[in-house]
């Protein structure tokens, strides 16, 4: 700043990039240092630890090369966790997002009551994940939960959804849809409200049916928002963890682990920091590949 003022008005006198450089020299380091210390270094550390058999105490000394990665490849619990992640993605894209879009179409118009419904549908998203998990653990509980009570009232025996390896993950998926559809609905409502009314008017004048208006006006106009919500949805699905712990703890029989809960239960609680780091690296590579690939392919112009 001083330099610029001493040399007279910088815009007229020196080349513009110089003042830009000064600004960069002052403004960039704090952000860069923070980013390096809290993002780049931990990633690098995790990558480094993943080559060691290390229990987290002291320093990693026992170098094992790629052993942790090879163990990961042959681990059926990890395969299951990956499959569960893929299921979450599928359910998010095929059920959650269409549901969110449908509700957004209903609630985007300013009518009496829409604000209330928006609030109601958005509430699950506001709730802390752990709290939501505990609530649903109770709902699914075979002894006291309402679902089981209903089953008993209908003449069936008590149902223990979260204790049954065949059903536990379906229950988790239902909770995921319930928890996050409101967030995507809000994204879509915001997108819908940004669409120019004139387009609909013009389409109506041209004789477009409601269906045609949706197909040729709403969808193309909303496309950037849909691409964004798919992006959030997939990344969120890949990193899903918080609600697994209170709901099932990854059980029964490791049937409801995601990659991150697998990392936690098989890496951290077993004090196998090297192995856990290897999981983290694999997850990181998957997420980064998806994020860059997706942005490059679908979000170039957004």
């Amino acid at each position: 700043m001083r330099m610029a003022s001493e040399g007279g008005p910088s815009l007229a006198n020196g080349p513009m990039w110089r003042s830009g450089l000064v600004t960069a020299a002052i403004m960039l380091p704090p952000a860069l240092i923070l980013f390096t210390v809290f993002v780049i270094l931990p990633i690098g550390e995790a990558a480094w630890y993943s080559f060691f058999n290390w229990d987290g105490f002291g320093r990693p000394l026992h170098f094992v090369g790629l052993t942790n990665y090879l163990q990961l490849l042959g681990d059926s619990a990890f395969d299951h966790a990956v499959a569960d992640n893929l299921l979450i993605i599928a359910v998010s894209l095929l059920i959650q997002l269409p549901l969110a879009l449908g509700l957004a179409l209903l609630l985007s118009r300013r009518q009496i009551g829409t604000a209330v419904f928006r609030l109601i549908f958005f509430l699950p998203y506001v709730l802390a994940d752990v709290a939501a998990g505990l609530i649903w653990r109770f709902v699914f509980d075979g002894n006291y939960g309402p679902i089981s009570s209903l089953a008993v009232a209908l003449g069936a025996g008590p149902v223990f959804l979260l204790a049954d390896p065949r059903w536990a993950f379906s229950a988790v998926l239902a909770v995921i849809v319930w928890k996050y559809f409101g967030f995507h609905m809000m994204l879509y409502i915001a997108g819908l409200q940004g669409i120019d009314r004139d387009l609909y008017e013009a389409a109506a004048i041209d004789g477009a049916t409601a269906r045609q208006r949706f197909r040729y006006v709403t969808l193309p106009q909303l496309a950037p928002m849909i691409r964004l919500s798919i992006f959030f949805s997939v990344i969120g699905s890949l990193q899903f963890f918080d609600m697994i712990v209170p709901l099932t703890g990854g059980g029964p029989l490791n049937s409801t682990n995601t990659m991150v809960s697998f990392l936690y239960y098989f890496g951290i609680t077993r004090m196998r920091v090297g192995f856990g780091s290897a999981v983290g690296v694999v997850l990181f590579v998957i997420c980064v590949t998806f994020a860059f690939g997706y942005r490059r392919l679908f979000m170039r112009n957004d």
Partner: protein
Amino acid sequence: MKAWKFVGAAMGAALLVSSAAKADVTIKVLHLQDSGPTLDLWNQIVKDYEAANPGQHVQLQFLENEALKAKLPTMLQSDDRPNLFHSWGGGVMRAQIKAGLAEDVTGWSGDLEKELSPGAASALTDQGKVYGAPFDVSEVSLFYNKALFAKAGVKAEDIKTWDDFLAALKKLKAAGITPIICGAGDKWPMHFYWSYLVLRAGGGNILAEAGAAKDGFKGPAFVEAGKRLKELADLNPFQDGYLGTNWNDSAGMWGDGKGAIQLMGNWIMTAQQTYAADKKGQASDNIGVLPFPTLPGGKGAANVTLGGVDGFLVSKDSPKETVQFLTYFLQPKYQQVAAAKGFYIPATLGTSDSIADPVIKQVASYIAGSSKHQLFFDQDLGPSVGRVVNDTSVAIAAGQVSPEDGAAAVQKAWDER
């Protein structure tokens, strides 16, 4: 004159420093005690200690069992580490000692070593060095509900062998009673079955033998244990949804009288009150206890016991006052109260006569008469192998893994540790 002044100043400074150091000792204790009455006693000890030692402060910090296991490695390597932290001994403790996170306190306090029963105290030592002290000893036994046994016509004294045990389960089931409550959602409660079956099949030294031999964990005792566990599970003796029940809930269910038997450490006696719906649980005179049954043809006798100690390790660079407090904490005066009120079986000598509760007295006599008190498998084998044992036990019971594959999984974890 100058010299005198200097000496005076030095003495003054020394006084200041030492009084400042004395004034500000805080001993942080990380524990996992969740029973209210026990904590009341512990808080009283802390209060008395602080009153008797002006300038010293003791902070009790609570962490739940699983959270403690997950957070401890990070906590111990931070500057804000606790001075005393909960330990069960075994593989985790050895890893902590190897990494230099526990302080060698041998000889810090002559009284500490005199206070404790030598067998229990040895659990928190390594290669002759003392790193902490246990406050209790525990044993896993079959706890049963006397009223429910009577209702089904099961006589506890008839249960000696595995076949007797299975017969009793069938009788209970026929009477419409859930025979066994097990918190298999947390996995370790199920590993008690597998562990005891291994001990009954292979004898008291089976873990040491298996660890020393090549493919030792694939040996006949481990496969036999898996087969017996499957045999048990095939009777469907557990409560509905047992695979999703966590241990706290299982203690509550048993306290509520929803099932007859729970294979658990003697801490069930307080836990079943804490987690029961009415906070009272089963009255002590309705609870009976049995040793785990023997296996026909097995090498392990009924007096090979499974259990452990709970205690505190001293963390690196802790002040000397830490051991002073630990010694104070463990003195008979206080631990007799814990014994009398049935909180736990203290490791402190001269407390056994104070045990009033007949059930706990019975467990204490099992420990006293034990030919080998094997530490919990998941603690003894260390966290990475221990958790595989827990996983495997549940998977065998649920029929997901065969006894042979289960034993092989443990061996694999042992080789990879």
